[in-house]
């Protein structure tokens, strides 16, 4: 199988090819993003994605993995994440057993090298990504900003050289450099050392047409009218005069979810009532749900043709 996949060595030769491949995987990327992905693949650099929650940062990694036919490895970051959960850990219990057994059979001279051998190594996502066989892997380091700053230091060697040093074993180099995607919600600024090793892309909310395409692709059951309305409504909600009423604008994930909910409620066309009733899907905060009043909803629904100045 591996020899037939063009993805193994030279994945895509043009930016258009990236756009198409991602579309094939159900991800509608705009051209800027596709350019960044294209470069990340060609230059073999990690790609750092920042943007509001729900704009499709994580989804991109999933789509890439299916477009490239590479395994997706995911490292979800959290406060207190340590090297042993991200890189590797020794299987201490097994090592102990080995030592005891060696003792029972009369100690051999190099117990040490026997104990520190690869089979007693527990591989965590970063190491797994380096050792992934032929087509390589897609590694998603999700929400890096959630891990604390000391953790970023563990990433540097990986991001810069695609290798990991294990004191007892030596250096593990990537067989195939993994396609690496980092995402951040910007709860804090990342260290410059990390940023220097990555390409950067800021993901914006999609423009209307792209959002419409996404809703159509993800919720095929939604009629043309409804999906159009959903895309338009959410788009306007995020635009200048309205967005300031809310603490957090709904992302793409929310509009897709909303479209699904509307289908489940047998909605054919949006009206203020149903918008207010389902506001809990668009907004996840009580204040925001309350802010989407009947008037605001009808205001957002009515003047469709009027261009927002």
């Amino acid at each position, binding site marked *: 199988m591996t020899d037939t996949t063009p993805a193994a060595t030279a994945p895509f030769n043009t930016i258009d090819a990236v756009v198409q491949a991602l579309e094939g995987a159900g991800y509608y990327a705009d051209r800027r993003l596709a350019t960044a992905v294209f470069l990340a693949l060609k230059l073999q650099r990690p790609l750092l994605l920042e943007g509001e929650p729900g704009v499709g940062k994580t989804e991109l990694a999933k789509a890439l993995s299916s477009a490239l036919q590479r395994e997706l490895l995911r490292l979800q970051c959290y406060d207190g994440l*340590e090297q042993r959960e991200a890189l590797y850990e020794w299987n201490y219990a097994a090592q102990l057993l080995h030592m005891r057994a060696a003792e029972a059979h009369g100690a051999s001279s190099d117990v040490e090298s026997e104990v520190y051998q690869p089979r007693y190594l527990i591989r965590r996502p970063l190491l797994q990504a380096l050792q992934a066989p032929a087509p390589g892997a897609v590694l998603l380091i999700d929400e890096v900003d959630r891990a604390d700053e000391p953790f970023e230091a563990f990433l540097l060697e990986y991001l810069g050289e695609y290798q990991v040093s294990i004191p007892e074993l030596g250096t593990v180099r990537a067989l195939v450099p993994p396609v690496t995607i980092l995402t951040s919600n910007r709860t804090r600024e990342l260290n410059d050392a990390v*940023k220097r090793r990555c390409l950067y892309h800021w993901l914006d909310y999609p423009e209307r047409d792209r959002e419409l395409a996404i809703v159509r692709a993800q919720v095929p059951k939604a009629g043309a009218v409804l999906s159009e309305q959903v895309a338009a409504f959410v788009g306007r909600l995020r635009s200048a005069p309205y967005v300031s009423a809310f603490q957090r604008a709904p992302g793409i994930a929310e509009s897709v979810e909303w479209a699904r909910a509307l289908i489940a409620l047998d909605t054919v066309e949006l009206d203020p009532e149903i918008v207010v009733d389902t506001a809990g899907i668009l907004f996840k905060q009580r204040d925001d749900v309350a802010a989407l009043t009947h008037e605001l909803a009808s205001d957002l629904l009515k003047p469709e043709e009027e261009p927002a100045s």
Partner: protein
Amino acid sequence: MSVPQLGDARRGKLADNMMGFGRALRRAGVRTDSARIALAAEAAALVGVDSRLDLAAAMEAVMISREQDRLVFRELFDAWFRDPELANKLLAQMLPSAEGKAEPAKGRPRVREALAAPRDPAKPAQTEREIDFDAAMTASDRRRLHHADFNALGAAEYRLVERLARDIALPVPTVPARRLRAAGDAGAHSRMHWPGVWHEAARTGGEMLRLPRLSRRKQPLPLLVLVDVSGSMERYARLLLAFLHAATRRAGRRDVFAFGTQLTDLTPAFRIADTDAMLGAAGEAIADFAGGTRLGGSLGELRQRHARRLTGRRTLVLVISDGLDTGEPETLERELLWLKRHSRRVLWLNPLLRYEGYAPLARGAAVLHRHADAMLAVHNLSALEQLATSLAALMRAGR
């Protein structure tokens, strides 16, 4: 890789252009280095120069690493690849010091002082009445300054107080972090410290007599500081900024905002290690210094644009203000309640507390008083020292 001949000629030009563009970016304040510029040239070769939009996107992916730099980049890119000469001139207009380069040697007051001819030690300077400059902070000197009101300090005294303030450490309360570290036998956590176990076992010939465990690290609470820079706070603001900058240097995360009629993010300025440079950068960033106060509106801005800076209800919020707010008290109340819900403690540091019998009667002050977890004085040095102890006490109380 392909078309070597054609590429060569073009690449030379392109590389030149790239270099110039990189430098222009740097002058405009976007951090970029030569490795990036080289990578940008590589990226340009990959994407090709046929489509301007693609090239722009490619350059952006390589050369930018912060969201706020994107606009600068786009404008400069457009200008540069239309006419580099013009772009340079534009840049010069934008930043008066850009053309001159090499940062004018402004010389900090401290440095100037150090370089100036030493004064005759027998004859004190005429303008400075009581402060003895040559005696380095003796105990008596220090005590007198303790109770001096900052507002009434002369310029020389002011500097000395500033230095004193820097010497007071403000211990930000710590909480157990998620991260673990090796502890002795008395480790509170249930996880084994395996590398430690091996070490111990090696000492006793492979027998495990001691089982070291892990315990949680301590980490300081994240800090969010809101400093009032309106007219009535003019004098305090500068000093408090200097004090906070120095005293919280070892704190973990700190976000600092100044507010008057609008909200200014001082966090980047606070990242500068040198206090004088920090004050310079902060002064440059603040556009509404010594103007009016709209605390409610500023908090609203904080909620809308920077809500994610408040991490997981752990943040300790310090509001430094005299509470003389010109905005609507209802707005202030609403925003303050929101802030309270999203942080661990909201403390109000009030310089007006120096007056005996001060009561928070002004509309804004009354709201602040009602909702803040505590009101602390910050008008002189002993108050600042107390601040450290009260902080700790407050964090313990009512957990």
